[in-house]
């Protein structure tokens, strides 16, 4: 039971901290990307179509980092593979 307490505590803290810190980087990156894209559209409105397409693809790439983070945390919370050493 004592081990279980530590596992629960550890995985909860890891999940909360992990998603918080893990989203920080992609958030900054997406913000910068959108700011630059808006800047570019303001300068050259006629290039909006190609800029938006590239922006969406880039955002998807950045976003996948945050999604990796989420997947790891879902694994920690629901399907923790390390539990078998304790149980």
């Amino acid at each position, binding site marked *: 039971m004592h081990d279980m307490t530590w596992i629960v505590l550890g995985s909860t803290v890891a999940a909360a901290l992990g998603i918080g810190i893990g989203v920080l980087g992609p958030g900054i990156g997406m913000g910068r990307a959108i700011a630059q894209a808006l800047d570019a559209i303001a300068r050259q409105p006629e290039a909006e179509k190609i800029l938006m*397409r590239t922006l*969406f*693809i880039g955002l998807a790439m950045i976003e*996948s980092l945050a999604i*990796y983070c989420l*997947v790891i945390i879902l694994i920690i919370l629901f399907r923790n593979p390390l539990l078998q050493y304790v149980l």
Partner: protein
Amino acid sequence: METDLFPRVLWQAGPIQITDTLALSVALTVLLWLAGWSLTRHLQLEPGPLQTALEGIVLAMENAVRDLLPQHFDEVAPFIMGLWWFLLAANLIGLIPGLESPTRDLSITSALAFLVFLSVPWFGIRSHGLKGYLSHYVKPFPFLLPFHIVGEITRTVALAVRLFGNMMSLGLVALIFLLLAGFLVPVPILMLHGVEALVQAYIFGMLALVYIAGGIQSQSRRKSKR
């Protein structure tokens, strides 16, 4: 909680499991095929509302493909537009009460990403031959070969995990809101679900298109240089 979010096993025989996500996506495929067949039977020159709406969607998809790959439009467009139609239906069906998006299952998104993974060499070889396609793995230097291979595999994994993570997390967030706040509170989240479903379908198809275009155009650029 887990019964709603994770795929349910409907039928099992030994190692083979039929989950509800698989059944739903097969049903969607058949439905889309039937709809495509029946709706194109009697097209009119002066279209009604349904035909106008569908033509608008198809034209938007065609223009997106044509912008990126004007020369290879006829080969690539059916695959990409099929992906788009399926993903639109699969993502949006989660909004219907009682049904969940089949794309919340990693197996379904992996299958779609694997199709994209195979289609890149398929279209590349078809347009430039086996030797021409394979030679781009060792350009510009032969020691870049492992990086090319790792790059192809990781982007396929990323494609699958991105769609899965997004649809899964949307369902999870709505469920958590339901647990925390109660009836009707997750409705704004479900509106976000609608937007996100469209964006994810667009991004999946667009990334597939960009990967295929990369496989085709890395060849033609070298050809024109010669």
